[in-house]
């Protein structure tokens, strides 16, 4: 009974397909050098006695037509009957039938069944951007139980077969889960790409959700998902980035509108197409849809979008906290269609002529299959870039998803990408420039630090390595300025929100500088601040005594990157060394830090007017143990407060002392003051001789021990006076 109903309704599916509803195919498996991707799909759950459909969707993702024949085979395991062809066994794009081979020829393959293996040879070629769908069906035997297996394979043009193993669990539908996740990164020859920093031709992510059998209107068999997925987040490995400014954008209105290529195509600019999407809906493959680079909404770094059967799906990109990799998020995904498989292919070089037959109208009308091309008229440029590091491990991809049915429960999946290599070929040519904001010696000063990395948009080249670590050592004598402490506050770790994308809530008074970052990923520079963090140590060499952090913030694009830094002070020379490590694997062309200037600037210039040299060691992610050393020199041209330069600083401290009562033999307070000017050298040692007869009486006073004094816990009774100290350069010492 089920079978007859199924057969009756298969014609419905066929009609839909004939009308272009089900026409092109997604792909789960991408074989090396294969021009096609193959998605084999069976429901994950089924009951004994039920027929289940085995769908093999074969898509030609290359820019050349495949060679005949296509050989498909399917071997069912225990508990499943041998596969047999469905009524619409071979289903080709109309464009194939019209332009390449006769439909009759394609629909009459040579098939045979040997034991539980069914094999067919199909005299069919696939033009670029077209797909062929193979439909078989098998039945769960009456006593079937446990987990059943099915193996399907597809060979195209004599190339090695792509094989996939599917499982069917006998029984009711199981929980919401990822059935599988896969990724592939291919070069222009459709070979796996492993070169760090390179631009992939195709980057494909494939997600399959657990599915079960079902039917609609008692008639139409639907292999629907076990639950409706709601939000899906794909975590890309750090350093795998896309450049949304490299290609034109499409607006939300344009995505929704009807394009010149027909209602199935959006009205997006051709140059905004950056890839392809194909889905499995209820066990059936959809036509290929274009993937577009969208105008990002407020709060997203970028957005991709596509339209399948009139339903719009947008994928927002965010820079995640922590490792600053990119997250791709589909939020509140439409439940309109019973999606069980999503495959998104993003092009690394969207304007490449290799995509001309799968772009715009060439995709929608199958004109590409007919040999026409649809160039987008844009210059070729890199839209994607692989990480510039070689960790020796496979690139980690993962995904999370929840369902509308259980929105608080997230399931996860993961996939391993290639192990990147070739880091020695990744260029790293930084330049750095530092300059104090004053040319006066021994004066409060801010500092401007400008770090540049040349970024290339050449889709055939290797991208500049991202900066991993920067160690900048200021000239000796360029020290922390105590005057800066007046009104200065610090930012606690809780306020900084270091591992969060939320903006820091640091006190404004802990802001000691500003940052400006130009990145090719955004049209406008990102601004930010340098915060002074709370002290974690009293050891000036530890780097934990003077802690700072850079926060780059772009609310428009939902970006908030925080980079902690350490400042170590040499206790002998006072020389300062700043270290920023584990910088985000994100490209930037220029980063400028401005430590604030003015009377309360955080630094002071050295005493001498001689050339002052800043040293920098810059470590690339490509070669994290091989820094590039840079040194920069600046010249101070005057002494402090308008005084001329001197080769040797003067030393003219002041001293005063006195008593408040001149009564001989009487008791009196004794007051003494030492001072020096900015132009003076620092006091190294002070000794004072008291007048004869001026004595102190300590009778009856408790003494404060050395340890107590160091700890600041002397008793009140031991207090015999008070000290007021002023420190720091500039007009407002602290």
């Amino acid at each position, binding site marked *: 009974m089920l079978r007859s109903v199924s057969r009756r309704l298969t014609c419905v599916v066929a009609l839909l397909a004939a009308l272009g509803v089900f026409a092109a195919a997604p792909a789960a498996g991408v074989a090396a050098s294969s021009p096609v991707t193959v998605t084999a799909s069976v429901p994950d759950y089924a009951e004994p006695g039920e027929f289940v459909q085995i769908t093999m969707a074969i898509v030609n993702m290359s820019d050349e037509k495949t060679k005949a024949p296509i050989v498909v085979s399917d071997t069912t395991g225990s508990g499943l009957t041998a596969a047999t062809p469905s009524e619409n066994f071979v289903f080709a794009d109309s464009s194939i039938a019209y332009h390449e081979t006769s439909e009759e020829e394609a629909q009459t393959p040579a098939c045979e069944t040997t034991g539980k293996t069914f094999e067919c040879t199909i005299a069919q070629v696939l033009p670029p951007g077209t797909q062929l769908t193979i439909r078989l069906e098998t039945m769960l035997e009456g006593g079937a139980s446990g987990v059943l297996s099915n193996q399907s394979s597809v060979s195209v043009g004599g190339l090695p077969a792509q094989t996939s193993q599917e499982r069917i669990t006998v029984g009711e539908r199981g929980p919401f889960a990822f059935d599988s996740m896969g990724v592939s990164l291919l070069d222009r020859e459709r070979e796996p790409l492993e070169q760090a920093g390179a631009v992939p031709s195709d980057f494909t992510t494939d997600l399959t959700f657990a599915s079960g059998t079902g039917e609609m209107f008692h008639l139409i068999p639907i292999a629907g998902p076990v639950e409706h997925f709601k939000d899906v987040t794909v975590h890309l490995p750090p350093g795998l980035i896309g450049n949304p400014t490299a290609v034109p954008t499409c607006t939300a209105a344009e995505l929704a509108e009807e394009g010149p290529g027909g209602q199935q195509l959006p009205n997006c600019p051709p140059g905004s197409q950056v890839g392809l999407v194909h889905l499995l809906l209820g066990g059936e493959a959809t036509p290929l849809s274009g993937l577009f680079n969208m105008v990002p909404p407020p709060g997203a770094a970028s957005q991709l979008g596509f339209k399948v059967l*009139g339903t719009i799906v947008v994928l927002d990109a965010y820079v995640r906290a922590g490792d600053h990799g990119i997250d791709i998020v589909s939020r*509140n995904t439409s439940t309109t269609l019973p999606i069980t498989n999503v495959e998104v292919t993003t092009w690394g070089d969207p304007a490449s002529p290799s995509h001309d037959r799968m772009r715009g109208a060439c995709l929608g009308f199958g004109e590409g299959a007919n040999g026409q091309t649809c160039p987008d008229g844009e210059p070729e440029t890199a839209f994607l870039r692989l990480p510039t590091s070689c960790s020796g491990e496979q690139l980690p991809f993962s995904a999370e998803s929840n369902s509308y049915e259980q929105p608080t429960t997230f399931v996860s999946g993961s996939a391993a990408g290639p192990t990147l290599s070739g880091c020695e070929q990744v260029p790293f040519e930084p330049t750095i420039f530092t300059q104090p904001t004053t040319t006066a010696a021994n004066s409060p000063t801010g500092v401007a630090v400008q770090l540049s990395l040349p970024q290339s948009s050449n889709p055939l080249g290797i991208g500049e390595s991202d900066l991993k670590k920067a160690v900048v050592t200021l000239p000796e004598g360029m020290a922390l300025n105590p005057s800066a402490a007046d009104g200065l506050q610090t930012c606690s770790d809780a306020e900084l929100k270091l591992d969060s994308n939320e903006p820091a809530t640091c006190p404004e008074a802990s802001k000691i500088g500003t940052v400006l970052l130009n990145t090719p990923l955004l049209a406008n520079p990102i601004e930010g601040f340098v915060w002074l963090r709370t002290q974690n140590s009293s050891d000036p060499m530890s780097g934990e005594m003077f802690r700072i952090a850079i926060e780059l913030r772009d609310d428009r694009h939902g970006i908030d990157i925080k980079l902690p830094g350490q400042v170590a002070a040499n206790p002998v020379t006072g020389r300062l060394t700043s270290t920023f490590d584990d910088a985000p694997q994100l490209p930037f062309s220029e980063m400028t830090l401005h430590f604030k200037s003015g*009377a309360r600037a955080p630094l002071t210039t050295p005493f001498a007017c001689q050339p002052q040299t800043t040293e920098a060691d810059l470590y690339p992610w490509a070669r994290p143990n091989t820094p590039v050393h840079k040194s920069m020199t600046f010249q101070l041209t005057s002494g402090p407060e308008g005084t001329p330069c001197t080769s040797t600083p003067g030393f003219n401290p002041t001293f005063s002392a006195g008593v408040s009562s001149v009564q001989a033999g009487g008791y009196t307070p004794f*007051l003494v*003051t030492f001072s020096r000017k900015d132009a003076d050298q620092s006091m190294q040692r002070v000794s004072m001789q008291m007048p004869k007869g001026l004595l102190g009486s300590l009778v009856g006073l408790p003494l404060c021990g050395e340890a107590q004094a160091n700890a600041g816990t002397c008793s009140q009774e031991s207090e015999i006076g008070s000290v007021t100290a002023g420190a720091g350069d500039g007009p407002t010492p602290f």
Partner: protein
Amino acid sequence: MGLTTACQPVLRVLVGRVQACFAVVLVMALVCGVPAAGASSGGCSNELRREEQNSLYLPECRAYEMVSPLEKNGTDVTGNGDVTEAADNGEAVAYGALAGFSETSGSGALGFTQYIARREEDGWRTRGITPRATLEAFQFLPGAVAATVFSTDLEYAAIEGYQLEDGSGGVPKEINLYRENTATSGLETISEPLTAGPFSPLGMNGTQRGSSADLSTVTFETTLNLLPEATGSKRKLYMWRDGQLQLAGILPDGSVPSGGSEAPAGQGEIQDALLNRDAVSTDGSSVAFASPASGSPQLYLRRNGTSTAWVSQSEASSPIASPKGVRYQAMTPDGHEVVFTSSDPLLDADPGGAGVGLYIYTDGPSPESESNLTFVARLNDSSSEQLVSAISDDAKRIYFYAGAGGEFATAGTYIWDEGAIHLVAETGTPLSKQAPYAHASLLAQASANGEVFAFRSNESLTEEAEDARSGQLYVYDESTRKLRCVSCMPAGAPTSASAEVEPEATKEPQSIDLPIRPRFVSSNGEHMFFATAAPLVAQDTNGLTDVYEYDLASGEVSLLSPGTGGYGAWFGASDESGDNVFILTRGQLVGSDTDSLVDLYDVRVGGGFVQPAPQTGGCVGDECQGSPSAAPSFNVASGFTGLGNVVAGKEGKAVGQSKPRALTRAQRLAQALKKCRHRSKKARARCAAKARRKYGPHAAKKARKAQKSTSNRVVRRGGK
């Protein structure tokens, strides 16, 4: 009528060739500037909000309120077709979008998702109301989930969709009807069968018809026999009332008509759905239906679910057993009057002949007369035409079209005003045929008392419309019996754009139309709203479509959208009073709107919310640390109570400083020895010896004497 049209009254989804495919598939396989008068220039309680928004040009102290959220999942609010409906009191509004956001739960065809926004103290809050279909639901097929009608307060929605996941019961594996509480998403199944079936597939597609104001009564029709008393394969009109399912199509004698029953306006286009929607009284007690009980289809009125009146029954002295050409035209909100046409004369007053007689049925005989029928006029028109454009709430005023002939010298739109007939406008065709939209009946609306009648016509009906582009909005005032083109430029200036009361803010290829009737005339008839690209006021300078309000009392139009900038605006809906006018625009009318996606705004009398303060980059440089503190004071003079040796200095400066003190001998010795270090070994020894001779202990006595002498001088100077 095929299945394609059967689903249209509920959800018209046109997907180009795919739609055509649907028909094939279904048939083959499955079924077989210048402030205008009224503008306030001050004195509004919300003046601050208006200033913040730069919206002082808005009339009646109106101000903008952003209704849709900023976070819309990257998608425009749907501004194409009729999907926007305001609650009667303007405190809520229903709208749609092609993406999910704001607690969305499900989505319908093409990802279309419906929302209810409610006004709260500090802003509008949106909630997704589209429920989820079951996992098998392939909403590209019929059965896509959609809210087809709302209660007038938007508290409830009637949902049609394939077996909702959160619904219980209903016809299995079939499209069903539900009532949703839009605040909680709770579902009640309307199409709950009390029989075991079997139920043929797609028997429930596009079935929802009428409803009461609070949706406690919903009518639908289907061929399925959901109740034991329902038999046969004909369509039957069901009534779900207070949770109970019953047949509405029951004849006056209590029998179930063998020919079936259906909603009175048929099941054709959206306008029929709108007419059917009104064929249930606001309290749900009266339901009009049609049934070919005996020959030609007749009109009936089901009352309180207990009795049925034959509306189109002839009361002529020689009654016709089964009058022909009976067509439902309108019903009053209380269900007391039904307006209809009949080819056959039903009263002796009707001369009969060509055309149709226009009648009013009054439920229950009046005290003065045994008759239920009132003859209005015989119209020289087809019995299949929708001739009535609008009626007053008491049916004492009826606006209708009459072709030339009989008592009507010219074809036109007329008003029947309690027995007197006046020409409203010389329209050459019924207004229902002048529709650029699916909603023909949208084009004409009357005030509750019927005194004011506003309609859109493609014809040039007034002097100022002579140079106007086709499709202008006219207002007729029965009190003055004057007609005016309110969307036309002042006389002498050509009107370059048509007036629209249906938005086209977005251009999705798929048109999603729901049987809702966005109100563009306030209930009292004092205000009309429309959109036009014609610059009707001087402030409108952007050449784009903008929203206008016409004030009947002043006869002036005012801008309700900025009229400037790069974005146009479209009219979406208004509430009963006209105080809340909902418009669609990509423009950023309030500070919190930072994108250029289409948003829904309320142009509200006395409205406006406090906007969040714009974010700034905060302080820069030294100011971040506040004002510098006073420098540390070293004014030791204040510590002296008697004579001392310290001279007070100026405030803020270190005081008590003596002249720079000379280095001690020891210091000088150290300095000299340090200099010696840079010399050769031999020279260093000579240098060191010389230094010790000069500054060493041997010479210290003389030096101490000199020091003592200096100290004494200091003391003496301080002790004068």
